[in-house]
């Protein structure tokens, strides 16, 4: 075994890590059937693929069901307080930009109590990976509506149905000048893993919204998108450079008509595949990305995959560059020098 490992080190320069390197010895206490289990497995599968030493991962969370996540990963981690994970992760990353920082949060944690940290972290483009578990309900407090709960939903605090307009996290991310937004499903491990890898590769705040099912308090909230019967008409996997097609036989597509997107069927009203909008995840202009993120059934399918991925300077890079520049040109390099700089006088 040791020889084998040594051989690997010689070949790749790093120890090959496996899923087991990241599994913690703590009992996972999410409800049976909760979508969180699948997300945990996907993350455990992705971490060994990143070429990052295992002690360089830090997983940070806030409060909520999803936020128990760090306890179930064998990495450095902080399970913090409600809504604050983005700001804590910011501190971790700025203190040591070399670390691979992952933030786990939910729709209550990031869209409500932590909304401010969420948008400012994205605006600054701190290089962290932010996994937003969106089950559209408060699970840990047992079933109150959240900022993403669909209007009209009956919950413990909306017995007659909510009359709040819900947030669409993707639109919020792009509105906050986000450089990366992807959406995925807890029911599709393959797609989830692919998106997490993309998020990890992106430099900046990579936000992944995971449509996650709460079996207890909002079961089947994403059913229209995820169920075998309806998913083909309600899912659109976006791929860079490919036309935005969906439906069982990819016969439906998205076109840009005037200033809005529309669903069309190929072959109807003279529509051909050439008319279908081609996805460009690297386009700096947020217009189409925002419209894609906003698409919701019944009028549209939900866009899944990497919707936006734009290369922009990260805050941590900028801060470190500024520090290095100052250090290089500074005449004061020690506290003794600073204390004795400027106007001083001697008493002898």
């Amino acid at each position: 075994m040791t020889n084998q490992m040594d051989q690997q080190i010689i070949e790749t320069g790093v120890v090959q890590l496996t899923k087991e390197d990241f599994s913690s010895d703590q009992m996972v206490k999410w409800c049976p059937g909760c979508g969180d289990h699948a997300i945990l497995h996907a993350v455990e599968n992705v971490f060994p693929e990143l070429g990052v030493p295992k002690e360089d991962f830090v997983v940070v969370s806030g409060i909520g069901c999803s936020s128990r996540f760090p306890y179930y990963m064998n990495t450095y981690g902080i399970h913090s307080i409600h809504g604050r994970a983005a700001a804590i992760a910011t501190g971790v990353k700025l203190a040591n930009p070399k670390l691979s920082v992952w933030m786990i949060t939910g729709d209550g944690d990031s869209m409500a109590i932590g909304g401010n940290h969420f948008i400012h972290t994205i605006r600054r483009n701190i290089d962290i990976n932010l996994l937003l578990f969106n089950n559209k309900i408060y699970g840990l407090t047992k079933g109150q509506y959240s900022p993403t709960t669909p209007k009209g939903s009956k919950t413990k605090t909306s017995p007659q149905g909510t009359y709040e307009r819900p947030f669409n996290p993707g639109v919020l991310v792009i509105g906050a000048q986000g450089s990366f937004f992807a959406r995925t499903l807890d029911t599709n491990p393959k797609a989830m893993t692919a998106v997490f890898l993309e998020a990890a590769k992106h430099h900046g705040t990579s936000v992944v919204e995971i449509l996650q099912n709460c079996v207890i308090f909002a079961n089947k909230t994403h059913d229209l998108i995820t169920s075998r019967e309806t998913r083909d008409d309600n899912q659109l996997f976006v791929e860079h450079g490919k036309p935005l097609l969906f439906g069982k036989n990819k016969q439906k597509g998205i076109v840009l008509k005037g200033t809005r997107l529309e669903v069309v069927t190929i072959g109807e009203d003279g529509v051909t595949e050439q008319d279908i909008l081609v996805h460009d995840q690297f386009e700096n202009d947020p217009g189409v990305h925002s419209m894609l993120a906003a698409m919701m059934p019944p009028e549209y399918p939900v866009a899944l995959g990497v919707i936006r991925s734009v290369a922009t300077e990260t805050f941590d890079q900028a801060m470190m560059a500024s520090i290095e520049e100052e250090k290089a040109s500074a005449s004061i390099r020690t506290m003794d020098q600073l204390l004795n700089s400027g106007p001083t006088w001697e008493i002898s």
Partner: protein
Amino acid sequence: MTIKNSRVVELEQVVIRFAGDSGDGMQLTGSLFSDSTAFAGNDFATFPDYPSEIRAPQGTVSGVSGFQIHFGQKTVYTSGDLADVLVAMNPASLKANMRWVKEGAIIIVDGDAFVDKGIEKAGYKSDPTMDGSLSGFKLIKSPISTLTKEAVKHLDIDLKSTMKTKNMFALGIVMYLFNRDPEVIHKYYEKKFKANPIVVEANKAVLSAGYNYADTLELFGTTFKVEPAPLAKGRYRNITGNIATAWGFMAASERSGRPLFLGSYPITPATEILQELTYHKNLGVKAFQAEDEIAGIVSAIGASYTGAMAITTTSGPGLSLKSEAIGLAVMTELPLVIVDVQRGGPSTGLPTKSEQSDLMQALFGRNGEAPVIVIAAKSSSDCFYSAYEASKLSLEHMTPVILLTDGSLANGSEVFKIPEMASLPPINPPLVAPNDPDYKPYRRDPERLNRFWAIPGTEGLRHRVGGLEKEDGSGNVSHDPLNHQKMTMLREAKVQKVAEFIPQQEVYGDDEADLLVVSWGGTFGVMLTVVEKMQEQGKSVALAHFKHIMPLPSNTEDLLGRYKKIIVCEINNGQFVKYLKMNFPQFKYLQYNKIQGLPFMVAELESRFNELLND
């Protein structure tokens, strides 16, 4: 300097107050006079007094900006009570400052500003310089604006720029009055405005004009001189409390080898600490201006977990917002210093005025049993040592520390003897070596009861921390009832143990006396001034001024028991006295409290203490 047309009288100490409209440059005037005071070898302390509005309506009382300096040939502990000299650039500044002026004081005013409109704006019914209301003072009314224009007419400079230099005319008069060499000020302008020679010329010309005017017209029959103070040998500088705080942290960072991270959100009167730290990237300082107070502290907690010497700075309202996060730092047992530059409260309160009313909040303002170390700086220059000590305690004991300063210390400045870094006590954070086989997140050092610091990126120490209660030792999440009690007691004991690592409480005065004056934090200067003065008069009075609040020094109880009467003096409604009563209920405590957004005055304390001694 030429031979002057005046007699020179020696004074022991002097208080000067410069006042004008908030656009008149009075802060600069004051600070330049401070520079000349430093070069004259006096000890001194200063305090700015400015409105919370950046540009309040011109010429009104609410728009007055002031700067007070107290200097002497003996040690100066405060920025002074009442002024011996007031410079008032307009009627409003005269009106706003007359209550701070000694009877018989010299009052220098710009006569050009005492016209109907200005007088009315200030709220005077008649011209105070004409109606005899200043008869008890020595009034020097000079046409400062006119003479300033005269002084720069040979230069190509517009009226607006000209008027900006009239503060130099007033300063010139004061420099003459105290036999100061104007060369110090000239040098400042030559250096500061190297790129703008006309500004240098104009300011120098106006300063000299003011100086010569005072001499030629024999404005004063007598001028004054304050001999140098017998300061200890060494190099000195002038420093404000906020700058001293920032530098104290930087010093602790350098000495501990832990990089400094500040997460902060601007708030009066703490903002200068954030500003100052952003200037020192050259020393590796990471100062992060967060989106709000909460992000300020939690980013610092994230940085602390990651191995930085993490701090956050704020004032009262911000401390309220940080409460929950302080609890997280208590629970995760991470080092963190929280600076509260106290101001008048509650709510927005009196943002630019000083108060000591956040003590209870600092001690107890959190959910659950959440003890933290609390220390309070005693003077502007002591902010350096307090920040250093707060960092040392936090890093070595692995616990949050709240450092209380206040608006007076923060903005006030005093003479600071520059320390050598090597003379500061070493700081040894309990770092864990890579792959330490014994490492457990909540294993403790038996001496200090701290847990150890395992930093992300270190091999073999991966672990999780968080706000949920943890099992002793392993650090796994635990809801076990007995474990919770044990952990609560451990966190409490860890903070109490700090008493073994801080100095004994010292007393200024005899071990036994008729009256023990007790105070804490930023009032040290005035308390010591009063007590020393009374001791010189042979009064049986002593001072115990507390800097360590939580825990209290271990000799506190013994000390309090030795005096016949105890009076606790605070700029609040009696918070430290409540804390002492709680800890040592066997003693009787008298109180002296002032809640006016104003500092104690020597006279008021002296008269109250004398009453108690004569009882």
